[in-house]
């Protein structure tokens, strides 16, 4: 056997799905090399045969056209291994001792396009991105039929290759942002991207950055809206969502689908989301501040009823609210993690049993349960899970400030958060920018 074949065989000695299949093309004995798990071998063979059988012209010409005249015909063993990993079929001709690359029929490893699973659409388009990158780009192409749509695909990673596409409308997108992204990709071509965290590092984002750099969305509508606003979309093969870049503060409150409703309704919904975000940040802190530090602000009637509801509770409000918020976070995490059939049980046990029992046992006050519930509901009103996550995190900052400085602490906490937001830049675009000035990013 040829040394190249031995070499390839050696490389795949632990891969059971690797095949070397003898085959005859036009009476010429060849070997087919590939991976069962990603190549549909039977169908591929059928096509090869059919091509030759129905042909009236000289077989050898046909075969030549099919295989031996392809571009980049000859390959060496290293390239061959790489191609096999990417799902290609290698045709090895013993006589001529050359290897040829062939694009086989792939195995269907992708799900079909389905409604979004993690984002709910109310009266809007019901398709969503899937894991396969080229399908995703196809969905976008179908929605933006414009000659300006640029798609650039890169393969990155040293030992685990991954495909990465950036998509933008070249007449609208900010040239500076695109240039930066491309230069980052070119600079880091040998970094493996396994998770989005890697992508962030790769794009030069600091490790301890709280603000999400991308708006990851499952919904093509959002992605297309991003494109039209001049933003850039990154697709990573294997991730069923688009990363819209840059991600700005206002994206926390505005969704493209809102524009499918009347203007006043859209404004009201967005206003509600802003209120929701503020409630998430302020409510728990306000409880701590009013109950512990500044009860003089309360009206006397309210002060008395709060005092009554806290009668006999051993912990200071800060401990009290930390316990409850922690339980709440656990419930949220558990209901995400658990299968759908157990999720409701957790909700019931957490919400009703613990909620009720914890009040009866005088561990926390009634009012606190209301506050915690209101907070968690308000938290979910913002757009995008990654945005809800930052609010979830930042509310603790305000609570800590409030427990030390009271109402003044809430204010300073909010100022602190605002200052932090205002200090952030994403690819040269300020995180808090709202205007459409800079290349229509807003």
């Amino acid at each position, binding site marked *: 056997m040829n040394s190249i074949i031995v070499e390839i065989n050696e490389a795949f000695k632990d891969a059971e799905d690797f095949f070397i299949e003898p085959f005859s093309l036009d009476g010429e004995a060849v070997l087919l090399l590939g991976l069962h798990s990603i190549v549909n071998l039977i169908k591929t063979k059928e096509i090869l045969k059919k091509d030759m059988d129905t042909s009236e012209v000289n077989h050898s010409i046909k075969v030549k056209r099919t295989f031996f005249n392809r571009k980049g015909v000859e390959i060496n063993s290293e390239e061959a291994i790489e191609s096999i990993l990417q799902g290609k079929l290698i045709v090895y001709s013993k006589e001529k001792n050359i290897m040829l690359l062939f694009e086989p029929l792939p195995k269907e490893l992708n799900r079909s396009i389905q409604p979004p699973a993690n984002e709910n659409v109310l009266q809007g388009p019901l398709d969503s991105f899937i894991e396969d990158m080229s399908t995703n780009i196809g969905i976008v192409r179908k929605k933006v039929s414009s000659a300006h749509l640029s798609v650039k695909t890169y393969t990155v990673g040293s030992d685990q290759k991954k495909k990465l596409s950036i998509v933008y409308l070249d007449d609208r997108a900010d040239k500076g942002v695109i240039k930066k992204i491309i230069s980052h990709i070119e600079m880091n071509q040998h970094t493996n991207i396994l998770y989005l965290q890697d992508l962030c590092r790769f794009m030069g984002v600091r490790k301890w950055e709280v603000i999400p750099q991308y708006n990851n969305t499952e919904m093509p509508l959002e992605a297309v809206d991003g494109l039209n606003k001049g933003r850039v979309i990154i697709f990573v093969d294997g991730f069923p969502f688009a990363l819209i870049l840059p991600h700005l503060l206002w994206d926390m409150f505005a969704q493209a689908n809102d524009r499918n409703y009347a203007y006043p309704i859209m404004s009201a919904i967005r206003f509600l989301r802003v209120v929701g975000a503020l409630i998430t940040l302020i409510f728990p802190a306000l409880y701590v501040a009013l109950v512990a530090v500044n*009860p003089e602000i309360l009206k*006397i*009637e309210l002060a008395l009823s709060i005092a009554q509801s*806290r009668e006999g509770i051993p912990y200071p409000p800060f401990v009290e609210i930390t316990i409850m918020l922690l339980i709440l976070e656990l419930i949220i995490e558990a209901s995400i993690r658990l299968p759908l059939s157990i999720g409701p049980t957790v909700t019931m046990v957490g919400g009703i049993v613990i909620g009720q029992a914890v009040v009866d046992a005088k561990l926390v006050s009634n009012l606190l349960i209301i506050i915690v519930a209101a907070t968690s509901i308000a938290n979910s009103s913002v757009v995008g899970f990654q945005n809800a996550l930052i609010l979830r995190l930042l509310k603790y900052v305000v609570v800590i400030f409030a427990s*030390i*400085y009271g109402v003044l602490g809430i204010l300073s906490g909010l100022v602190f958060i605002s200052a932090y937001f205002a200090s952030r830049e994403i690819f040269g675009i300020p995180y808090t920018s709202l205007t459409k000035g800079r290349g229509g990013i807003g």
Partner: protein
Amino acid sequence: MRRIMICFKLVLSLCILMPLSGCWDIKDINHRAFPIAMGITKEGEKFKVLLQIPISSEGVQKQAIVKGTGLTILKAVEDIRTNMESSVDLLHIRIIIFDRKLVEEGGMEEPINTFMRIREISSKTLIAICDDNIDSFFLALKKNLEKGINLYDFFEKYAGWTPQISLTRLWHVYRALNSYTQNVAIPMVKSGENTAVTYTGTAVMKRGKIVSKMDPKETLLFNAFHGNSMKGRVEVMEHATIMIVGNTGFHKGELRNHIPYMFSTIRLNVVIQERRGKVSNAIIKKELEKVMANRFDGMLKRFQKQETDVFGLGQYYRNKIPYEELKDWRKKYYPNLEMKLTIHTTIQNEGNLKNIIDK
């Protein structure tokens, strides 16, 4: 190395944060007592302070009356604080009631100054004078008020307040004690037979002493002059009963030849509720205007004689009289003040009756 420095700075700033915050002084809301009314009287040389404290308990509201004595007011409060099981802070005090005896002896200034100074009590706190024994007043209050927090409601605009009751805040009293051109009127209450509180009128003050009194009807005009709403006030006259539904006031002062002239206009919107016999709107209007004007004139004459400027008319002349002479406002200028009061009445509504006489 850089990372260690950042960690060090973080720890340092957290260490600084803790001692600077003062958060060890924080007392939770359920460990505090919130007195809502404070009574002040004097027993010999010592001040006696009574606090009405609502006690939170399951179901019914309960009140506690606690007393303390001391050479100063804060000493008396401290006396109470020592003996209470929860911390007493005066942050929620809504009303301070002075014993009439204390006021008549001129002892009001010292407590008011204290309250303004300590900052613990809101300057919006209401001030009232108790017309009978303050001990029995508070006891009666406690008996009557088991259900709620109601001495305060009596003065609350959205609750029991009516336009005949004057509202005087702590800062009003403090201002009057230090102002050349304005005096203050303080409502007087005593415990009632059927209700918790009976309103007996308004004390007209001069330098912390009572010099005259306004009855409820006069207080109404006093409130109207200051632009406070007279809404809902029913006025019974010879020929009709009307209800005042709105009022505005406009005042202008002029100084001619060292004699202050005051031009005031009060506009009343009224609704006719009852008519006796066949009287026209014009007569009712005239009657109302006359009643009001006479009442006002009587009041002003009385106050001018006593040199007490509860209406704060001097305020309109502060830019017309040199500052050095302002302190003589009450003596030199105020008694000579000429008042031109015009009352405009608009009859808004005569009810659903059709046969209206309009002559």
